[in-house]
């Protein structure tokens, strides 16, 4: 009846749609290839002109043929993107990168230790009416408030310098503790006992080959929050 008819129509429409789609895809592919051919031809012409120019050598201005074809807009754009990416990469490697906006400024502080990239931390500032922090992802045991009270809003550079030192040192200390746990797991007895800031580390260890009944106990104190090396180490044996 009617439904059967509708079904037939629908099936036909579907088939035709599929065919149409295939046809369009073929045409699209063809168009793409054609444009590529055009591109390559253009390039070939450019290069030919360049070669001709070089062969003609030091001819005067009259002898100069058409200017070597200007690099296409596309090439310029690509070159710009590459160099910007490179610049951003360089900034990222310096440890501080940022973005300035309307009344806002976003900064990213990246930490590293001994060639390993570690965590990144973010700050967002409002610049009007005066410089102040809007939000951040700095852990609460880093003295952010203290530093901002001391340096902001006059001395942004000093603030960032100090904060970056604190963060890098903390990330470095934490990284070292993790590496110690990982690479010397068979030396260490029990677990490392530390704290959030990683500025006090206590652990027991055995040197392989030594008598295992008398482990050494090490206590590392990091008095300088901006350094990733301990200021005081006490090793005892009981």
């Amino acid at each position, binding site marked *: 009846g009617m439904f059967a008819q509708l079904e037939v129509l629908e099936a036909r429409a579907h088939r035709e*749609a599929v065919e149409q*789609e295939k046809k369009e895809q073929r045409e699209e592919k063809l168009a793409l290839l054609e444009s590529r051919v055009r591109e390559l031809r253009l390039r070939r012409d450019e290069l030919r002109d360049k070669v001709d120019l070089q062969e003609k050598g030091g001819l005067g201005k009259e002898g100069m043929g058409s200017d070597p074809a200007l690099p296409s807009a596309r090439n310029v754009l690509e070159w710009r993107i590459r160099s910007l990416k490179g610049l*951003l*990469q360089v*900034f*990222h490697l310096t440890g501080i*990168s940022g*973005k300035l*906006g309307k009344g806002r400024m*976003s900064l*990213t502080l990246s930490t590293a230790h001994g060639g390993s990239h570690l965590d*990144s931390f*973010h700050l*967002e500032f409002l610049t009007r009416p005066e410089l102040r922090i809007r*939000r*951040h*992802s*700095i*852990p*609460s*045991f880093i*003295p952010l408030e*203290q530093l901002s009270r001391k340096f902001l809003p006059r001395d942004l550079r000093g603030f960032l310098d100090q904060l970056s030192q604190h963060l890098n040192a903390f990330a470095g200390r934490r990284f070292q503790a993790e590496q110690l746990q990982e690479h010397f797991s068979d030396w260490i007895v029990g677990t490392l*006992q*530390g*704290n*959030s*800031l990683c*500025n*006090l580390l206590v652990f027991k260890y055995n040197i392989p080959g030594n008598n295992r009944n008398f482990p050494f106990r090490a206590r590392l*104190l990091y*008095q300088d*929050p901006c350094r990733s090396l301990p200021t005081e180490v006490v090793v005892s044996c009981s």
Partner: protein
Amino acid sequence: MDETVAEYIRRTVLKMPRDEIKMMLQKWGFLSEAQLQTLNFHQIKENISQEVVQLCEENSADIKQAAVLDIIYNHIYQNKRMWSVYQMKKTGDELEYFDLKEFKKKFKRNLRSALKNVTITFREYEDNAIWIRVAWGTPYRKPNQYKPSYVVYHSQTPYVFISASVLKSNLPLLCQALMVASNYHDIREMELRGHSLNSLKDIVFKRYSQNFESYCPKPLQERTVEPESVDLRITEENRSEKERIQRLNREVYGDGPQPILEFAQYMLETMFKSDLKMDVLDKKEPFRCLVKFSSPHLLESLKSLAPAGMAGAPLSPLLTCITQKARNCFRIRDKKGLFPESFVSP
């Protein structure tokens, strides 16, 4: 072994799901592997718990060990409890070398000097979390082990997570001991409560995903793009509006998962403002009402309101400031003065 200890251990084991009992006993470490091998974990829990108690009898367990087993259970099932967040304040700016041994000593000493009959148990976890379990007694009664308070503290942070027992009177003692042990001088309760301890931690430690504009050297994760329906008979209306909503949502909520909160409540207190002619009320009593949003995952549902078309974007700042302000209980009052506008009290 004390009868009360045996009963307590028995009841603690009964709380555990049957297929997790072995794992928790192993974490506990009080019973040896050999002893654990003798247990039949396929029988009914009543019998398992009796056998466990017998083994503990052999090892002469005391309340201290039983308390550790309780902490282990509550650490794994931390989301069953309601946690409140407290913030401590410090006077000086000196750097702290948090020494765990010192902390524990000071805490115990301070708490015991106020109340002799307490059971205090500590357990440290890998993420620098210190769990403290306190069972409270009175000067004349031994501690009640069935209603302990739990405190979770991360060293060198000003935040403490407390799941208190019913007895509210012990809270000041607990706070006092915490302040003394961690070298802070003031503590106040934040307006932040929830069941998911990790989410509360994410909020105050700012570990949730905030949408910072930053250069990411790692390539952005490919977002799964829905394959556009090739059927040209279907067109998408309001595409630009949808994109605007997505953009605003992303600015507020970021890309990552949201911390889990179960509710947000707003207490409104306002005066009825009327024409002087139509003075309906005799007494000038403020109007009070409480609006509470509840959900198994409140922030995710708020995030999906605008894309689902149920609310306009951007959402009210009262809803979007929850993670930023680290609070889910708000008091909204009239601003006293010439221009009565509502404002959120600190």
